[in-house]
């Protein structure tokens, strides 16, 4: 009879549905299909889809590639640590190192131009959290993730690490300028 007793009707699966249940199941099913279509449709019509382009990489390889870009396109340095500010041409490959506990180098991008941003970690997992835009991407060691980004506003942006990475985690902040 009740939910804590065996169904008194041994052929319970033949019991008819109430209209409340039938109607709700239909509505819920349609809503589920809409949500599924939305996710697929955004890949066709939407402008915010996370790239899946990924390569295996190593610390040495990625550092060398980053260094090459830094050597070529540094326009100035900032802070007493002389962190290079890199201004790569639109459409080019840009490398960003995450490590305990900073993002290196600083990037200077142009509004409405697209860049191929390469992300990896030198040690633990890190989190690329771009503020105040609020875009969040996981950064995993050993994997080079190439994300095509197109800034749509100019200003000063911060990259906060939002994957716990040890005692200095809360101070791991980087910077992107968009002109």
């Amino acid at each position, binding site marked *: 009879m*009740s939910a804590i007793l065996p169904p008194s009707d041994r052929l319970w699966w033949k019991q*008819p549905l109430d209209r409340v249940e039938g109607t709700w199941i239909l509505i819920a099913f349609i809503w*589920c299909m809409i949500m599924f279509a939305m996710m697929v449709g955004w890949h066709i019509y*939407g402008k*915010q889809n*996370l790239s899946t382009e990924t390569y295996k990489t190593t610390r040495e390889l990625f550092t060398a590639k980053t260094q090459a870009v830094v050597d070529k396109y540094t326009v100035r340095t900032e802070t007493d640590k002389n962190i290079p500010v890199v201004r790569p041409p639109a459409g080019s490959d840009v490398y960003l190192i995450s490590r305990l506990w900073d993002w290196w180098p600083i990037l200077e991008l142009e509004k409405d131009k697209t860049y191929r941003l390469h992300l990896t970690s030198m040690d633990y997992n890190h989190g690329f959290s771009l503020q105040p835009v609020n875009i969040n991407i996981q950064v995993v060691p050993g994997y080079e993730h190439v994300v095509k980004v197109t800034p749509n506003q100019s200003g000063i942006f911060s990259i906060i690490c939002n994957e716990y990475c040890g005692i200095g985690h809360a101070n791991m902040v980087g910077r992107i300028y968009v002109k």
Partner: protein
Amino acid sequence: MTTYRTCPRSGLQFDTQAEKLMLANAVVAVVYLLVGGILAVGVVLTRWPAVHWLAADNFYMVLTAHGIDMLIFWIIFFEIAVLYFCSSTLLRCRIATPRIAWLGFALMLIGSVTTNVAIFRGDSSVMMTSYVPMMAHPAFYLGLILFAVGALVGCFVFFGTLVVAKNEKTYQGSVPLVTFGAITAAIIAVFTIASGAIILIPTFLMSVGVIKEVDPLVYRTIWWAFGHSSQQINVAAHISIWYAIAAICFGAKPMSERVSRGAFLLYILFLQLASAHHLLADPGLSTEWKVVNTSYFMYFAVLASMIHGLTIPGAIEVAQREKGFTKGLFEWLRKAPWGNPVFSGMFISLIGFGFLGGISGVMMGTEQLNMIIHNTIYVPGHFHATVVIGTTLSFMSLTYFLIPVLFRREMISPGLAKLQPYLFGLSMYFFVVVMMGAGTLGVSRRHWDMAMGGSPFAYEFPGAAYLMMGLVGITGVVAIVGGALYIYITVGSLLWGRKLDAGALSPKTVPIPVVPSTVALQGHGSAGFAAPGTFALASVFLVAFVLYYFINWKYLSQVWGLS
């Protein structure tokens, strides 16, 4: 020698050995809730920006312990008790292999203590997720592995008990719906624990230096098949408890067995895929994989939850209407026993789980929307709605039923018990809403200092984010007080509550009487619209869901282009 006790208050029949096991598991669970609750004080008072209590190293240690003690130890110890209840008690049979069940309990206890010791040594502050290559002390993993093996033993004792009941014919026909839900939970648990073993054993070997490397991405993928799936055990378990409480408080029977069991079946088939929710912002996984998995294969598990969300209050409504509360849409609900914490806790849990936990979960589980949520404090906002408002509050409600029935004590302070679900549940409602608000503004989870005082590039969050994190602190403290009340009432009743009559003991089980099937065939019929009030509530839910869903897409459409 097996003996059975028939509880004079509920008519339930307990195998005395199973009863001791349930008691032991439930008591240890409550102890872990106490430990986790004390740790919660450290977490909320540090994340409250104006207080910022603990130093960074202590904060991360306390946060690691809080997550593991609550999400794993409190919940799974309690769930093992629930599994034994749903098998041995509801099916009125002896528990299979009680000695092995005690072995499982011992493994869980030793494992959980080991992991806690490792954490409080201070060298295992790796969070619950313990992503490699960040390493904890080997004892951290060893404890978790022992615990998992113990829990697996518990699951097999549960399955064995089902076999005993079937063989000894203690019931006729199919198992009760609540037991069916518990079977769902146990099947998911076996998958979960196997995934945990597959990834934690190599990680343990890595921590002692036997193997050199565990791939970080493989770790994340398999760990989440353990980490998220363990939350799906909770969903199946607490939904079973909702059905049980509806039956206990109202004598409610499922609107239709077919629909409710079908929804549990959808859980078995699709709920596990949700571990992909955690990997949507990861490199290396294809879009197709993400879309299919994160949507539980076209949202079939969401469909199942939406069905349970209708059929449980629907069953209550039907039962109430049969008692004569038929005025308007909502007399059945107004006249419900709101002063009974067993019911009020369950209903606050159901509403909060659906509106706050369910809707936010679908947002985070939408591949693209995940990018504006991943690893922000929105995530703990979501899962406090699911595992605290959903699971923990349901377990609390069930406890109020079990104090006289299983513990055989009169509840102390019934006035406080009446208040507790409201204080705890409603403060948690506010807590998760402000957490999700702060997450929408970009505040990170697992972060010691949102002012980032040690960095030359410190980002200043908007004032609203600080306000909301302050409210997280305040509502968090209120919720902790609510949780403390539960522990006071439960432990107090066990220690000082008046002893109640245990009921008659008998060496033989009394099988569940068979009800002639003509009674049941009356059913509710396909012609009716038996629960209009519930349908109206469900419609409000759907409107909120749809609006919030598209608001998030609007928000996403304004951020930087990504392709």
